[in-house]
């Protein structure tokens, strides 16, 4: 059996730990600990809200729903612009520092608190698609969420991958308070589409 003095020491230790624990929240606030490495997320999901079953072989007249997602891990609320663009294989892609110079077809504006995620529907379809045998394919119009855009993009047959390839490109922009405008975040996702004849 422990002596009374030993038990007293245990009580003192428990008391000290308890008192320190009571002041931990205010100490954290006082220290104003920085958040972890801030970052933003941009992702694309298939029709079932999963990272699978992405549309690939597409044709005129059919609708293709996919979902775009944005995650805010920046440590504070953010204002994001999610820009949808459409390119053929020869047109410029964005990279880690510069956005694609192609025009924005559709822009989502997303306001997210720290730690929050947003998912938005992107349904697209094509019309006025003309094939010149196995030589070239021309897409006249693209509909994004019911809004029609004249695009008139022609692509030649790809001998390596056997198809007429186009790409939907989605760029993430975020509001910069210093310049008072949305700036490209260096993040983009894309989806390759093979235009096929529905005949």
């Amino acid at each position: 059996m422990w002596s009374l003095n030993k038990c007293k020491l245990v009580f003192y230790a428990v008391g000290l730990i308890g008192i320190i624990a009571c002041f931990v929240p205010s100490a954290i606030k006082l220290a104003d600990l920085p958040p972890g490495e801030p970052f933003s997320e941009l992702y694309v999901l298939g029709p079932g809200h999963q990272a699978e079953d992405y549309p690939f072989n597409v044709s005129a007249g059919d609708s293709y729903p996919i979902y775009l997602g944005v995650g805010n891990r920046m440590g504070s609320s953010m204002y994001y612009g999610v820009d949808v663009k459409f390119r053929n294989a020869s047109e410029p892609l964005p990279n880690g520092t510069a956005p694609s110079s192609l025009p924005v077809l559709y822009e989502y504006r997303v306001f997210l608190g720290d730690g929050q995620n947003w998912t938005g529907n992107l349904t697209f379809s094509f019309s006025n698609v003309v094939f010149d045998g196995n030589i070239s394919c021309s897409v006249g119009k693209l509909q994004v969420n019911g809004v029609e855009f004249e695009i008139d993009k022609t692509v030649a047959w790809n001998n390596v991958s056997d198809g007429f390839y186009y790409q939907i490109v989605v760029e993430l922009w975020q509001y910069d308070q210093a310049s008072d405008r949305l700036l490209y975040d260096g993040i983009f996702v894309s989806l390759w589409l093979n235009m096929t004849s529905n005949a």
Partner: protein
Amino acid sequence: MNLRGWVRIAVAVVLAVCLLTIGLPRVFGVSSQDAATAIGGASNVLQAAFVSVADTEKAGVNVSSLLNGLDEAGLALTMAEAASNNGNYSEAVSQAAACETLAEGVEKEAGAMKSGAAGWFSGILSLLVIGASSAIVFIVVLALTWLWFKRYYGRRLSRSRPEVAS
């Protein structure tokens, strides 16, 4: 026809041309320029509202309801751009106006929430008060436990029989 007659006809033609090129679109529709101006204005108001919300958040206020309001305003602006792209300029102006109204409402609410918010110092103070109260309650409970334990220990010690180690 004399000269006066020709002048009258010329004036009438000029007036008709002016009416067709300037007046009619203003009376019966909205130009693409009007839509672009409205969309640009709404975009600026939306950005200003976000700045206001960000400032309110820095003051320690939960701004999730304000962010929902900004989302609605942002959606209206996207609809305005879509309508403008489809050539429906009056709808574009209407959606841009809706965006502005929503964003201005959010900005006003953010300002009110910020002015009513407890500052950083009062936040620290309230945490310290809560911490001190919890510590006092803990010490009292621990002291009572110690008193009970001391009595229990004494009772147990007096009941035990001395043994001689062999």
